[in-house]
């Protein structure tokens, strides 16, 4: 558990400084969450291009990454491949089977050493053990530009500390969806069994992964992000708050008892969400009036409707 952040730019600028904002917001949470840090960035689309972030573990990271690139190269044009730490960041073109590429990548290892952290035309998940400062040093977050992001700083309580268990989680298999969560999902094991029976693959025992799976499966069935998030509050047990993002939306939800913090601030130019006002104010470098949703509230903001502002989301 610990803190989460989210930001959506409403100015229509697809080169907003979302990396710098993530850095500053997550810095405010860092003192309480030393174990791991991550963010899901939605960067400008390039026609035809697909972004794939691959985490590689084990004794032969270099060898495995080479095999991934070669196998992917048989299915698509590899525009670029870059290894940062244990993360292989691919940009692909001329890819016929968007979802099939994940199986191609992950079949390189049959013991789970190769995991897609994200896949999509806009989404790029960067996460690792350690603090936000480590992430900035390794991945130069502050240089990333785009439209919106969600992020998480983790204090591990119930599962392993490694890059795979860090948040946000990609909502596989659907492209361009990510989720970050704080709290506990108490019916996690039951949900996981259900999702696995539906063919979903899990790489961790982190309950946030199940939220991503739930949203992705619901949206695959035709639900909107908002519909899926509202339904999640009837399906997920426990005390939690979470943020989710797709290629054009940012959402925030609070559990039935409102037992986890979540604050929101909105201006004409942006929406910002966090578990703490400190992250909101530090992230945007200004004093902002924050407000807290009530229990069982879901709020979703879209890039396409920048005028969906506070009035529509006024608490009761």
């Amino acid at each position: 558990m610990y803190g989460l952040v989210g930001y959506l730019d409403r100015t229509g600028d697809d080169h907003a400084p979302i990396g710098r904002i993530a850095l500053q917001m997550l810095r405010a949470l860092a003192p309480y969450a030393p174990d791991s840090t991550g963010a899901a960035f939605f960067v400008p689309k390039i026609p035809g291009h697909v972004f794939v972030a691959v985490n590689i573990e084990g004794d032969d990271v270099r060898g495995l990454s080479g095999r991934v690139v070669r196998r992917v190269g048989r299915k698509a044009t590899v525009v670029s491949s870059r290894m940062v730490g244990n993360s292989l960041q691919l940009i692909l073109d001329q890819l016929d089977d968007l979802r099939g590429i994940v199986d191609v990548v992950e079949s390189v290892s049959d013991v789970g050493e190769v995991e897609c952290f994200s896949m999509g035309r806009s989404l790029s998940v960067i996460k690792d053990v350690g603090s936000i400062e480590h992430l900035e040093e390794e991945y130069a977050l502050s240089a990333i530009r785009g439209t919106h992001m969600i992020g998480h700083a983790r204090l591990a309580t119930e599962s392993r500390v490694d890059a795979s268990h860090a948040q946000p989680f990609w909502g596989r298999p659907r492209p361009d969806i990510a989720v970050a969560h704080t709290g506990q999902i108490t019916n996690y094991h039951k949900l996981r069994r259900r999702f696995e029976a539906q063919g979903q693959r899990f790489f961790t025992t982190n309950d946030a992964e199940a939220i991503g799976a739930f949203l992705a499966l619901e949206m695959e069935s035709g639900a909107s992000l908002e519909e899926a998030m509202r339904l999640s509050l009837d399906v997920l047990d426990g005390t939690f708050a979470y943020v989710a993002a797709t290629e054009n939306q940012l959402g925030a939800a609070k559990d039935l008892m409102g037992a986890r913090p979540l604050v929101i601030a909105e201006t004409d130019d942006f929406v910002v969400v966090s578990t703490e006002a400190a992250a909101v104010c530090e992230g945007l470098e200004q004093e902002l009036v924050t407000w807290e949703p009530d229990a069982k509230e879901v709020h979703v903001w879209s890039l396409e409707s920048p005028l969906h502002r506070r009035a529509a989301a006024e608490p009761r």
Partner: protein
Amino acid sequence: MFSIDAVKRSTREVNRLIRQAVAQGERDIHVYDPRGRHSLGVALAEPVHLVFAGTVGFFCGAMGDGPTVEVHGSAGWSTGEGLQSGSVVVRGHAGNAAAAAMHGGTVCVHGNAAARTGIGMVGGMVVVGGNVGYMSGFMMHHGDLVICGNAGERLGHGMNGGRIFVAGAVKQLGDGVVECDLTPAEHTLVADAVAAAGLSHGGSFRKFCPVDSAKMRRDGG
């Protein structure tokens, strides 16, 4: 007036500067740019006027005994928790559990207050200019909770004392809570509290109290 710039200062540094200023006899202290830091202005036992010019985090003004704390922004969870006397005024919105377990004094939120406002109140008064969230007044023992806007689900759930006054709509009452008639003195009490806070309200106030106390009143107990 004594000024403290909170930017680039830790919570501990800001609180140490506040306490030093109080010890030196300062009675009007302004903290600028608090940037949502937690636990600011906690456990002050002097009648000082402390202003936070911006948003604060959790527990602001908690456990005070005499200070007047003003937040010119929003506040996080547990604002004014355990207040003994004095006041905490939030000009923006407040997070969950504002005025939790307060014993005396006044907590005033000009905007909305989130879930469980006034949880476990033992005394004092809470005035909210906007709406309150889920389970406000949960397990109240004593004191008054005045809500100018609407109240969420399970209002006053499990309360065994105290009074809740609501001018707007009530989504759902908690178990063991009933609506009662306001006495003339209570009409005056609520009107005075709202006016003193500089707030206004749209409708007539309704009063909610524990079923046992309502029954005792009817039975002349």
